[in-house]
């Protein structure tokens, strides 16, 4: 069994009017099969309202499926006795940095998770210091979170999760509210976590550029997975991705447009550097 597995997962939001009568049902997630290997970095792409966040909340046992099953490290997420084990195994970082920091001092916020696990005070100290060192936040240990930049706040959120020693972290649009610099900083740090600490990463985003280096990409639209596979294969479906409200990286779009005009380039170009290489090759061939 894969580390995280969903089978025919479906989730329905039921809207009720003031008297409690059912007004309508929205199928936010609809028949999703997902399988994530331990240690991998996968991305889930989709426009707003595509169901990607609803899917994410299941992986942490914050939502329970209407239909289908979800297992995390062999544990069924609907098994109430396993909730805490699931949550410490698969941690979660959310979009808004301010709405997920509990403590008023950096160090205390990091301690919040381990304290909930009922660890001894010595062990909590060790974990807090370890997490702060790993995320490069030691210098801010005694600072108030409000003194941090957006990128640093997200680093703090990551430190808080790391202190629970998870095997996997789910990032639910964790960079959506950051400036480009903060976004790049967080993404490269998470990649490093994945490579060096072997933490499984599920990266949920609507910025396709952020998914370039993933092991696998899943694209969602209206609750379903409509595309999946290696980034270069998925990204070559430029028109389909545009139709569902996503935008391929500029390099991909440019190479796609050039190919359409008859320039002989390889498909599946994801970044400007490889595009430059391809263009030079094309130029040499044409001479």
């Amino acid at each position: 069994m894969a580390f995280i597995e969903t089978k025919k997962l479906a989730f329905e939001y039921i809207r009720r009017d003031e008297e409690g009568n059912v007004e309508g049902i929205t199928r936010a997630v609809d028949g999703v099969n997902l399988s994530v290997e331990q240690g991998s970095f996968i991305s889930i792409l989709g426009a707003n309202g595509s169901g990607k966040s609803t899917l994410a909340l299941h992986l942490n046992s914050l939502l329970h499926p209407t239909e289908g099953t979800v297992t995390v490290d062999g544990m069924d997420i609907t098994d109430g006795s396993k909730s805490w084990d699931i949550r410490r195994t698969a941690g979660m970082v959310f979009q808004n940095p301010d709405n997920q920091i509990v403590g008023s001092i950096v160090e205390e916020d990091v301690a919040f998770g381990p304290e909930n696990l009922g660890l001894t005070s010595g062990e909590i100290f060790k974990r807090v210091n370890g997490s702060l060192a790993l995320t490069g936040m030691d210098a801010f240990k005694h600072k108030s979170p409000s003194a941090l930049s957006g990128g640093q706040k997200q680093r703090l959120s990551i430190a808080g999760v790391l202190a629970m020693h998870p095997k996997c972290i789910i990032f639910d649009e964790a960079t959506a509210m950051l400036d480009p610099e903060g976004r790049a900083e967080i993404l490269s740090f998470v990649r490093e976590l994945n490579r060096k600490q072997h933490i499984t990463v599920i990266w949920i985003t609507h910025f396709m550029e952020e998914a370039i280096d993933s092991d696998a990409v899943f694209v969602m639209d209206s609750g379903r997975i409509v595309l999946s596979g290696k980034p270069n294969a998925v990204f070559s479906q430029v028109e389909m991705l545009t139709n569902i409200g996503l935008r391929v990286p500029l390099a991909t779009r440019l190479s796609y447009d050039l190919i359409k005009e008859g320039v002989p380039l390889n498909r599946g170009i994801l970044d400007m550097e490889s595009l430059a290489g391809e263009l030079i090759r094309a130029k040499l061939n044409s001479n």
Partner: protein
Amino acid sequence: MIRDITLGQYYNTDSFLHRLDPRTKIIGTIVYLVTLFLYMNPYVYVFALLFLVLMIRKSNVPFKFMIRGLRGIAFIMIMTALINIFTVPGDTLFMIGSFPVAKQGVRVAVYMIFRLSFLIIGSSLLTLTTPPVRLTDGLERTFAFMKIFKVPVHDMAMMMSIALRFIPILIEETNIIMKAQLSRGADFESGSLLKRIKSLMPVIIPLFIGAFKKANDLADAMDARCYRGGVKRSRMNPLKYKKGDYAAYAMLVLYAAAIISLGIYAKYLPFGNDILGIGAK
């Protein structure tokens, strides 16, 4: 004005007060607040002021910071003073229009202003020198005995610490929303009181909606980090009394004893004949 509220903020520095156990500070604050309400004579108030000044100096929080906190509640203080001036009966001092102003009323009003200022500064000292999570711990432990009466002490303490953490964020948000509505031509400063209250709706509604969203997000984030109320929860820094705390308790007892003695015997001192009750009559 809203920027000026210092109550509930934490001032990050190191000091004698910062190092004290939160329980010591909570009990100290309660004792101090109680002493403010016991007597109404100049000696008690001067002594309470001296004690407060000493504590401020022991907190390493700039004096300016405290005064700024008072600006935020100036309106409430003035209202309280005015109500007292106009409603307390006694020997007429002078008339404002057809309203008589009594000597006793002025006296109570003056005391009220001092009492409120001491009260606000005294309680802000607690929050300024105690990180909210420590404060929560302290409250939880100090009032733990109430669990026997089925009072959800842990949950209340947690709610309070979260409220404290979000106060500065909500203040910032209020500022932004006010500015945004100003730029849509809103006017918060002119018109009758009713009109002004009405004009605040475009600020209050988005603020509440935002607060609910925050609450939802935060609840998810806390769940995701395995929060399950006070059950099985341990602490990185368990509370432990140190030498300073015993010294502080000793000081507190001396202070309370001094206040009570001054309260009882002040009437034998010049201008001291003014214990609550007598002054107001």
